[in-house]
């Protein structure tokens, strides 16, 4: 409510943007900011960008642009390349060229994996207590014997690897 009252006092103009403040000196036309204008972009799926790459041409380049208006067979190869470079930044070949970034990424990943390994070693040595007694040699062998006695997984599993006649693991 109060905001709309202030709006009516100021008039139809917006209250305070930096663009409008600068407009007070001119005829009421705001200078267009760079980011609002069409931009040049090197993209595979945009073959003809909205503007040419070189915006402000030197006198030499302006002369070349005039020459471009005549027959193109009069242009030399260097002039054609110069015209191309004025219009575009990179060629498709340059744009699509791969980098060696993957090596850096892979190296970084492996490095931090290694560092994590060091942390784990430190933890095992300094932090963790002893493992449960059920991991001891005697317990595990008694456990395995009990599993074989019960015929656990006799088709494809552990009991299938044991030879019950000879009382040893199958070769």
């Amino acid at each position, binding site marked *: 409510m109060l905001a709309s009252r202030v709006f009516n006092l100021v008039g139809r103009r917006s209250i305070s943007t930096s663009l409008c403040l600068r407009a007070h000196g001119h005829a009421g036309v705001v200078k267009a900011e760079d980011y609002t204008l069409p931009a040049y972009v090197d993209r595979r799926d945009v073959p003809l960008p909205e503007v040419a790459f070189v915006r402000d041409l030197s006198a030499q380049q302006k002369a070349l642009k005039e020459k471009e208006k005549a027959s193109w067979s009069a242009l030399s*190869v260097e002039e*054609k390349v110069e015209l191309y470079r004025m219009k575009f930044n990179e060629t498709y070949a340059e744009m699509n060229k791969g980098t060696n970034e993957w090596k850096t990424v892979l190296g970084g990943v492996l490095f931090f994996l290694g560092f994590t390994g060091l942390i784990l070693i430190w933890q095992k040595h300094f932090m963790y207590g002893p493992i449960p007694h059920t991991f001891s040699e005697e317990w595990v062998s008694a456990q395995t014997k*009990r599993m074989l*006695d*019960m*015929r656990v997984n*006799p*088709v*494809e599993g552990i009991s*299938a690897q044991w030879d*019950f006649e000879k009382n040893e693991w199958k070769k």
Partner: protein
Amino acid sequence: MSAALLPKPQMRRLLASRMKFHLLGAFLVSMGCATLYKFGVAEPRKRAYEDFYRNYDPVKDFEAMKAAGVLESAPAK
């Protein structure tokens, strides 16, 4: 201009050719995976079960387990 002209790249039907390539490839890869699984995993497993149950004597197995003492309700006497 380069001394020799580059070959003209494909200009049209790019999606169509990409789709054809990838549809065929996807079909072959998925069929290949299914075939590999069937003959690498499924068939050996079926054969293992057949071999196990061909000459299986459950009573003999029961007696062996009972003798080993793992059955709580059927102690080895």
